[in-house]
């Protein structure tokens, strides 16, 4: 029976490291132009924090797309919804969030993140059953129905919370900056980075170490075969959709605190950003989404400093460059 592996060379484990190094490369290229070390550190850390927030919002979208080929144009509405839910927690509990106690501050922040995730997950369930499920596999209708859902959701948010910007102050102990050498590092950015990294680590753990995670990865590649092995991919999918919506809400809270205000239009703006990120990363790839988020955010920050006029279109230029290099994104998912 040894004939089977006779002549079969040991397949080399190819780990594609190059795309993962691109953020480093970008930082190295940008550094001499920025000149001052402290500015560079500030910009880089700001970029990382922003990248982690974008990743939190975008990672669910890429998995939802990978698993069921569903591109949810309503994803942005969950970002806004999460932010509004946070105002419902943080504003009435302003006593806690403005108290001079790190414990109380963090407790109320965690409560807001939790509430936003739960509400968005629950609304995600309804959204999936009512809007997405009836049009599985029909791309055109799917795009249109989820756009319709996004419009309705945004308008409902306006109707419920009013059309004005709602200010959302940061918890007291997350305001201000540390001074590291000459560089000022905003405390909140550190906090956002920690949350984003935790989300990434959690996802990686689930995807690589649990059976559910294996099922998701297998389903992204070939959902029919997953069913032929005896699993209900539609149940798996609704779970992923809810988790993705919850993460969008979580990201929405982070972003709203970063901007210190909430408005229903933020979802539509961030939707474009999340699309760019998941295209750059490779549709369906969480790791690609992570690298893509960091890249987009770093370049936005560097460009904002070096060529402010270009900053807002820098991510489009980045997308074009990445796609010229790798037409299916940094980490194309096999099987699609």
């Amino acid at each position, binding site marked *: 029976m040894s004939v089977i592996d006779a002549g079969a060379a040991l397949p080399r484990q190819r780990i594609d490291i190059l795309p993962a190094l691109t953020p480093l490369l970008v930082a190295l290229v940008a550094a001499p132009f920025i000149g001052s070390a402290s500015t560079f550190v500030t910009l880089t850390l700001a970029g990382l924090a922003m990248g982690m927030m974008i990743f939190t919002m975008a990672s669910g979208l890429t998995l939802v797309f990978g698993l069921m080929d569903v591109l949810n144009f309503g994803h942005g509405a969950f970002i806004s919804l999460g932010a509004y839910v946070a105002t419902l927690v943080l504003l009435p509990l302003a006593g806690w969030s403005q108290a001079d106690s790190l414990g109380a501050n963090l407790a109320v922040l965690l409560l807001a993140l939790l509430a936003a995730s739960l509400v968005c997950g629950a609304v995600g369930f309804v959204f999936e059953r009512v809007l997405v499920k009836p049009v599985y596999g029909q791309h055109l209708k799917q795009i249109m129905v989820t756009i319709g859902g996004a419009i309705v959701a945004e308008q409902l948010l306006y109707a419920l919370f009013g059309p004005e910007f709602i200010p959302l102050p940061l918890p007291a102990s997350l305001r201000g900056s540390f001074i590291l050498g000459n560089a000022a590092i905003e405390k909140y950015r550190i906090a956002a980075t920690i949350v984003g990294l935790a989300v990434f680590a959690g996802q990686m753990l689930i995807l690589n170490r649990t059976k559910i995670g294996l099922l998701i990865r297998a389903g992204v590649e070939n959902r029919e075969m997953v069913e032929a092995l005896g699993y209900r991919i539609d149940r798996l999918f609704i779970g992923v959709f809810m988790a993705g919506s919850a993460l969008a809400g979580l990201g929405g809270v982070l972003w709203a605190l970063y901007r210190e205000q909430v408005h229903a239009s933020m979802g539509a703006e961030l939707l*474009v950003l999340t699309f760019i990120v998941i295209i750059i990363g490779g549709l369906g790839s969480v790791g690609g989404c992570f690298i893509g988020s960091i890249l987009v955010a770093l370049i936005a920050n560097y460009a904002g400093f070096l060529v402010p006029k270009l900053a807002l279109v820098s991510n489009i230029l980045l997308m074009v460059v990445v796609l010229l290099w790798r037409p299916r994104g940094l980490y194309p998912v096999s099987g699609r």
Partner: protein
Amino acid sequence: MMILSGDGPRSKALSALLIVIVLVLALAPFLFPGAKPANVAANICISVLLVASYDLLLGYAGIVSFAHVMFFGIGAYGVAIALYGLGASWGALALGVLAAIPVSVVLALAIGLFSLRVQTIFFAMMTLAVAYAFNVLASQLSWLTGGEDGRSFQVPEILRPGFKLFEGDVFGVAISGRVLSYYLVFVVCALLFLVLLRIVNSPFGRVLQAIRENPFRAEALGYRIVFHRTLATCLSAAGATAAGALSALWLHYTGPDTALSFSIQIDVLVIVVIGGMGSMYGAIAGAAVFVLAQNYLQALMGKLSSAAADAGLPLLPGLFHPDRWLLWLGLMFILAVYFVPTGIVGRLRGRG
């Protein structure tokens, strides 16, 4: 039937509806004098052209693009920049249009070649991102575009409200530059609509539909998919650019809100679905219904809202507030996608 390229409405009810709409549009300045009806009518004409050119892409080629409003904006900004910079002459107007169309076509070509090889959904995302960036760019380059404020400009003299073609009235209506502007819009839209109708009924149009139905089969039959789809994208972009130029000419103004806003894109998508995808006539029916509803239903919503407020009902005043028009539009849109996927045209043809 020649003028309709052998593709008639094929339903008595639909024919009647279309005849009424076209006749009313043709006679609008005489039937309903006044500024608001003229705006509504011109808006319908421009929407018909914009939507018909979008339907070439969505309904016939099965391509979802979110950059259609960008091409509309290029036309509008082309006219605005030329007339603002060079003065109100026909030469400047021609230059603006003639510069805008190649810009649109080249951009459409680039997007098409870049992303039409892959899935529909990829194209949709790409166009959304590009259109968004273009919008940002237009607001940023204020030396050229006037930024957020946009550009107001003069149009050639005979199109100005003050101009009178005759001393007297015709059927009780003074033939002002405004009326002439309206007829310019109407005639150009009608002609370009007929051109689009011809395109979708040409062999090219049929190949597009074959590709939409079954790309693999079409490719096996020897049709070059990317070529056909890219050409459709370019033609559609040119149509949108013309609509944008007319819109600028009618408004004497171009700004991000009137020319590039994403809500215009949403409106176009909604009109295509309401009217009926994959039928040019859907653009006429959909645009008429939509624009009328947009202009007159909002007033009704205002009344409902205040009535609900007077009755002390919770939440309803907010939901019926005229600013929440998009809420009801979104709901209508979702219901239309589910239950009337063939739109007004499909319903009237009895295939609803």
